[in-house]
């Protein structure tokens, strides 16, 4: 028997085994060296990771410390500014020559600007340190918008810009949200629009959208006819400390923090803010916020709901050269139940009025924008056509009422209303003007008359008391105003803020004038 180790097969297998073992040894040494490489690179990675964590902690702590410092310093930063502004204001009211007054006004306006920038910087710090929270309470959205508009009104008027409120009346509701943050967001949206618009208008559009999951979403759109924002700048504009291009920022002062704050507020409220714009074609900002707690205004005892009812089917012609304003006013009056006709020019308005007369129809009121060409002539023409029984003529103006009052009266205007039109202002003025001498459609009249009459008695008694206090120079008048704010808002509508500021300045004469002469009459003497 031969030795198995001598066979060819054995030798073949032996060589195969040798190759397999050599391959295994090589594989093991390869694995060993790769494990070592992995271990080394792992060590390096852990080390780099540790360094990164330390670096991040350091930078976070530095950022927090900075924000905390500014937060702590905010009182110290703001107090001197408030003193400068307050004392300048007091000084302006003392006897001064024109030059001194001019210098003081410069100090005052620069200090105002400085104060608003300081506030923005402090707020950004609060955002960065995560200390900005929300404090919900109930408030009315439409009123807040009107207040924000009232604040920016003077700046817009100074530039000759019209502010148009469109469909804001659909936001006549109470929501539970952070009123201060809402007010700030609106203020940022509006002041930006006015700041970057040199001519044309700023339009505020209200909208409610039903989101399938989140429920109602309130959308406030602010559209301007300003310089617009390039696509490149749109990408940066919501970042803190990024203002528009150098050339633009030289023209418009500001820290460039408004929009970052706005975006943060929107985010905090679970909503967002979007921007659409092209250079030269204005900008549109849409502020969308989901709301969870909403109360219909009908829940609040409101006299105006009866008033709106009695405007049902009242025929009104609106004349305005700005199509956007025309649309917004038409929507507003429609929501009051009025029957409308609209005209973009004075001649168009004349045609509509003549046509109506030929068909034996008549308008209860004609609302004419003073800036529309030939507006005074149109007013005079209406007066001449139908001196007594003709439609009431309501003038609308973006300018100050005091400036135009005389001209408007000369032209035959029954009442002059400052734009923007709000639901409150329109209903109050129309009802006051049409009053008892214009019976609306029969059924509504019988239903709404007792309520309105009863309310009028209260109103006149209270207003007579207020007027007496103002005439006597009673300093407790401000307390009374605060206690009866809602009542006064209803009575004074758009004049409310002017009234309050006059009272605050102890300018009781101007405040009394705002109450209007008809309010001084005792209830019994009213026709």
């Amino acid at each position: 028997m031969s030795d198995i180790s001598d066979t060819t097969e054995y030798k073949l297998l032996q060589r195969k085994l040798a190759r397999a073992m050599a391959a295994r040894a090589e594989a093991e040494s390869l694995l060993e060296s790769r494990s070592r490489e992995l271990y080394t690179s792992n060590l390096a990675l852990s080390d780099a990771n540790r360094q990164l964590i330390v670096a991040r902690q350091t930078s976070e702590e530095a950022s927090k410390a900075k924000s905390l410092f500014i937060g702590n310093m905010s009182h110290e930063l703001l107090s001197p500014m408030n003193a400068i502004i307050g004392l300048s204001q007091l000084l302006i009211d003392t006897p001064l020559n024109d030059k001194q007054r001019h210098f003081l006004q410069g100090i005052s306006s620069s200090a105002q600007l400085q104060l608003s920038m300081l506030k923005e910087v402090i707020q950004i710090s609060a955002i960065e340190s995560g200390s900005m929270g929300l404090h919900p309470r109930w408030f009315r959205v439409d009123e807040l918008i009107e207040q924000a508009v009232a604040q920016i009104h003077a700046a817009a008027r100074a530039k000759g810009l019209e502010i148009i409120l469109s469909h804001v009346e659909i936001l006549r509701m109470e929501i539970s949200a952070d009123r201060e943050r809402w007010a700030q967001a609106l203020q940022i949206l509006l002041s930006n629009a006015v700041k970057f618009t040199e001519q044309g208008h700023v339009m505020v559009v209200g909208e409610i959208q039903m989101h399938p999951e989140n429920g109602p979403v309130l959308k406030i759109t602010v559209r301007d006819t300003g310089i617009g924002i390039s696509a490149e700048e749109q990408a940066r504009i919501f970042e803190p400390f990024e203002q528009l291009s150098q050339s633009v920022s030289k023209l418009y002062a500001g820290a460039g923090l408004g929009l970052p704050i706005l975006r943060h507020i929107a985010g905090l409220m679970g909503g967002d803010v979007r921007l659409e714009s092209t250079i030269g074609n204005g900008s549109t900002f849409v502020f969308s916020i989901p709301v969870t707690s909403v109360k219909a205004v009908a829940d609040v005892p409101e006299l105006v709901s009866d008033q709106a009812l009695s405007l049902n089917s009242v025929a009104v012609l609106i004349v305005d050269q700005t199509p956007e304003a025309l649309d917004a006013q038409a929507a507003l009056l429609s929501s009051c139940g009025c029957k409308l006709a609209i005209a973009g020019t004075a001649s168009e308005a004349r045609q509509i009025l003549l046509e109506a007369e030929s068909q034996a129809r008549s308008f209860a009121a004609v609302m004419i924008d003073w800036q529309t060409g030939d507006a005074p002539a149109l007013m005079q023409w209406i007066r001449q056509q139908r001196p007594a029984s003709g439609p009431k003529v309501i003038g609308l103006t973006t300018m100050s009422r005091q400036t135009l009052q005389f001209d408007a009266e000369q032209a035959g205007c029954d009442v002059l209303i400052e734009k923007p039109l709000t639901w409150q202002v329109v209903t109050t003025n129309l009802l006051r003007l049409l009053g008892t001498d214009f019976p609306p459609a029969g059924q509504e009249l019988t239903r709404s008359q007792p309520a309105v009459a009863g309310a009028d008695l209260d109103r006149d008694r209270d207003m007579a008391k207020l007027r007496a206090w103002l005439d006597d120079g009673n300093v407790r008048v401000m307390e009374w105003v605060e206690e009866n704010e809602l009542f006064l808002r209803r009575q004074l509508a758009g004049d409310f803020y002017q009234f309050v500021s006059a009272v605050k300045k102890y300018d009781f004469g101007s405040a009394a004038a705002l109450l209007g002469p008809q309010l001084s009459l005792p209830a019994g003497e009213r026709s």
Partner: protein
Amino acid sequence: VKGTVFVEFLDHVEDKYGLDVLDSVILALQGKLSTNGAYTSVGNYPHEEMLELASAICSMRGESLESLLDDFAQSLMLSFERMHPEFFDKEQDIFDFFSTLESRIHTDVRKIYPDARPPLILCRRIAEDSLEISYQSARPLALMAIALTRATGVRFEEELEVEVLTLADDHSSMRMVVKRRMATV
């Protein structure tokens, strides 16, 4: 070339021709192979050794290189599929498989093996039934690529006609048209 290709190749030769053939080829190439024929799938080896092995087997068996590579490519396809089933979708169209080979498979190969240098395979559909494929590699393995193309057809159960348009002298680049017989209704 990845060691796994060498291991697969030697296994294939042993399965097909027997251990004695494999053994004598390795013995005949003594001194020309870096590891004397001991390959591990986790290593990397010079492609010249693969060519030496293939041509030695061909001359020993009197077989054409084309038929050796075709056979080997088919068994290599099976191994690839066993190791990376995620790359082989039975429902996939074969032209889509070729067209996405570069973006899907080679991209992943480069990620898994940073030292790997897979060839660049670019495809262009020139007719409904024809695909032009170009191959460019740092290694002269164009013939292997052609064989793998045919093997892919077998794997996808498609009758493929492969026509080589150009083949570089050093076999590092090649263009071919792959035509498939369309199913008749």
